[in-house]
């Protein structure tokens, strides 16, 4: 079954020099449990596409289907509700709340969703990324890689169907990055979470089952790999 489908998604913005097309007519579908990478040079529209796929932003034309629900038919709150149940995020700059401890950061999506055994699950998730001992630490007391692992725990603690990651290793050195990537694929295997990764790192892209290449907003290749 298809968990995500992009149909002729286009994003245009108006600028002083006229209309600018950032993403142009992108169509593809992702099977449940699949891992795909979106690659392309900086400025090619990867983040913009990701925002539309996750319902953070709406396309100018075209539609996005998430778990069979047409995102364009929902209002902002409707899309937020859908994300709360089905979507997790990992960002390049981690986006941990600086005033919350590691555990509180992981608790955040559970509390928003009103989950009953939130504490237990959050502790489990933190333990899963190897940071249970650091649960009372604040983000500034953690290294970059540790912060990203907390972010991964936060993303997976709700057991989402889909995980979107925008340059998850962009701010990390290669060793730390590798550990983070490892975690992402472990979750992908264990929970059957579909991974949509934006990256410009070939090594990371190669580990995905499928690689989409974006060039100036257009899908220029769609390669199903051997991973």
């Amino acid at each position: 079954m298809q968990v995500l489908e992009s149909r002729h998604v286009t994003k245009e913005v108006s600028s002083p020099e006229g209309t600018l097309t950032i993403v142009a007519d992108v169509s593809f579908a992702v099977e449940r449990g699949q891992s795909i990478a979106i690659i392309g040079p900086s400025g090619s529209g990867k983040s913009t596409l990701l925002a539309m796929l996750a319902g953070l932003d709406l396309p100018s034309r075209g539609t996005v289907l998430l778990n069979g629900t047409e995102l364009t038919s929902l209002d902002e709150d409707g899309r937020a509700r859908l994300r709360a149940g089905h979507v997790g995020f990992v960002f390049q700059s981690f986006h941990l709340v600086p005033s919350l401890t590691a555990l509180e950061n992981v608790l955040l999506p559970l509390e928003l969703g009103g989950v009953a055994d939130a504490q237990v699950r959050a502790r489990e998730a933190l333990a899963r990324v190897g940071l249970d001992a650091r649960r009372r630490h604040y983000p500034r007391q953690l290294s970059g890689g540790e912060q990203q692992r907390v972010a991964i725990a936060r993303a997976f603690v709700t057991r989402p169907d889909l995980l979107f990651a925008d340059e998850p290793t962009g701010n990390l050195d290669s060793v730390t990055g590798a550990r983070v990537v490892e975690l992402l694929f472990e979750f992908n295997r264990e929970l059957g979470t579909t991974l949509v990764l934006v990256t410009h790192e070939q090594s990371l892209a190669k580990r995905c089952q499928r690689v989409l290449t974006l060039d100036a907003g257009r899908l220029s290749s769609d390669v199903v790999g051997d991973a």
Partner: protein
Amino acid sequence: MKKALRFALVAFVRDVKSGELAVLFGALVIAVAALTAVGFFTSRISQAIRAQAGEVLAADLRLDSGRIPAPGYEAEAHARGLAVAHLISFPSVVYAGDASQLATVLGVDGAYPLRGQLKIAAVPYGPAHPVTGIPAPGEAWADSRLLARLALPVGGLLRLGALELRVAAVLDYRPDQGMGFADLAPTVLVNAADLERSVLLGSGSRVTRSLLYAGSTEAVDAYAAWLRARKSAAERLTDASESSEQMKSATERSGRFLNLAALVTVLLAAVAVAMAARRYASRRLDLVALLKSLGASQRFVLGTTVAELALVALCGALAGTALGLLAESGLAWLVRGLFKTSLPPPSLLPAWLGLGTAATMLAGFALPPLLQLRRVPPARVLRHDLEPPPLRWGAPYLAAAAALSALLYVLVGDPRLVGYAVGGLAGSALVLGMAGVALVRVTAAVRGGAGAAWRYGLANVARRGRESVVQIVAFGLSLTVLLLLALVRNDLIDEWQRSLPPGAPNHFLINIPPSDARPLAEFLTARGVAPPVLAPWVRARLVSVNGQPMQGRMPKTDRGRAFAEREQNLSWSEALPPDNRLVEGAWWQHPDPAQPLVSVASEFQDELGLKIGDRLSFDVAGESITATVANVRKVRWDGFRPNFFLLFAPGVLDASTGTFMTSVHLDDAQRPALAELVRRFPSVTVIDVAALLGEVRRIMDRAAIAVEYVFGFTLTAGLAVLFAAIQSTRDERRYESAILRTLGASRRTVLYGVAAEFTALGLLAGVLAASAASVIGWLVATRLFGLHYSFDATVWLGGLLAGALIVGVAGTVATRRVVRSSPMRSLRDV
């Protein structure tokens, strides 16, 4: 919703811990504390002032009647726990040997006076000391004037009808001797028991019987209301508040100083709240975007924001009120001894107003930018530059300013004062804003010339444009207030105290016949007294207004009725007298005697409901004179110079009509000369106001301290604005400095750049603030307090220095940490 509340609570605790709310919270606490402190204080002080003013009545409440008051009055007063004293007064001729003199005889009982103290002396115009008690039966205390007239020594015998009384002492002062010149004849104080036995009271019609009451404010007020409903029109009720123009004038003025300080404090704090909220909101953009990406709804974002703000309001109001109460006790301690009675407990109203202020300030100035948070695009988690649609500030801020003004009006009850404070601040902000825009443009043009740090700093001022203008306005406002406090405050307070200098007149001389005017002036100057200024003085009764007899338009208040029924003191003058300020109409230039004009005091206008152009008819010594109201004056009664509710244009009254009056300052060494003066000029009446003058001066001195103290709050609010303005660009600076450092700029270059930017902003704001402070200082002095104001060039120097130093140094120091932190960390945190 429960979820949102819980989240708000957690967020609140977290924000408090991390100091994120510090400026917002601080500004709120300052505003509420200033308002409650001044509110509590003025409410208590006004009660105490009333008790103080009671001295002038020798009671809190006084009933005067031509007949014996109904016995029920006294019984009711006792039932309500009030103290009561009886007073009988009538004019009578008294004799000593062959000499005779018309005197006012006052018979009192042992309870008199209920407020204040009698003072007696051993010889006429000699040194006096306070006493408790009254003359024993068979004895009398006569005032110096009477004894001088009768050439009677202390210990001599005074005949009063069939009574023979021994003069046991000189009556130097009694609290109710008054300033109204009603008691023109010299006084002799006797024991009422003697009078009841004598036949004098049988003569009837001229006897005034008074009941004096004293007690707690509530009991007195309740009793006064009870009595007012029952008493006949012939019985006149006076309460302490209307007893002395001088005392009232002095206390009103100090109240206005205090209120103005509180108003400015609240308004400044509102500016700080608005700025802090903007920054708080902008710092929450990322959190909100993250929450949204994690599935939070707009309602959730809204709910948590409003709930958190409500928590801030509640805590701010509580902390502010507590601090205000504390400050108020300090204030009460500072003015201790000003009142003989202990200060009554404060009322609770200011606490509610404090909560109301906190809620209004937050709802009006903090909520708009925070509400905008719900519109944060969730895609901001991926693209940092995405922001909510810009807020249209105008409408919500205007509404908030209006609500705050209304609240302040409730608190202060003086629309003019609120108008000046709000208008002044808004006007300054507008001018500062426009000047800021212009200066930012100029800065953009000149930046090429300077060195690297300056170039970078000035470029920043220009590039940040809007933010720079906001900062200039905020720096400018706080510097304006700081300058006003530093430079103008002293002038104002000095000037105020100077209005009652050590040499202020302490004796009024009235009933000076025209033929005595010159010899009297010579008599005084020969004894080292400054040459007196003589004012014509006529007694007249108002007969009709616009042809309508006074009986038909009797005012409701006792005071108004006194204006309408009693003889008034009036005078004429070519020029507007020094302590007077025109509030309506124009002063006469070359008045035509055929078209008589009259100028009325604002109190007279208010009580009788007069307007310019009304025709007033007077009975002046049997002659009827009709004059048109030409203008209305506001009189400063606390100057202790002759002033009048009614002034005619010159030529309206015959120059030979009436007498003259003057006021002089006599020191203790000069006072004995009064005995000779009274003998040489037998028709002249001397009224001693030294005691009253002393009271007014004491109020002024203590109130000046209180004002300084409240200005402390204003200063803090000004610093809060400054701090909020410095904070407002901190995050941006952090990012910029990280980039510059990454590009290889040394820490020092970046810091110099920051210093250059803040110094430039401070200099600009300082010059603007100096101009604003000059104009506002002038307006406040002349318009609000009727004081003279001289422009002072040092204000500009002060502005430049304060701007460069305070803003430059504080800004640089506050930003130093940002510049210091490692570029890697800074870049990652954004």
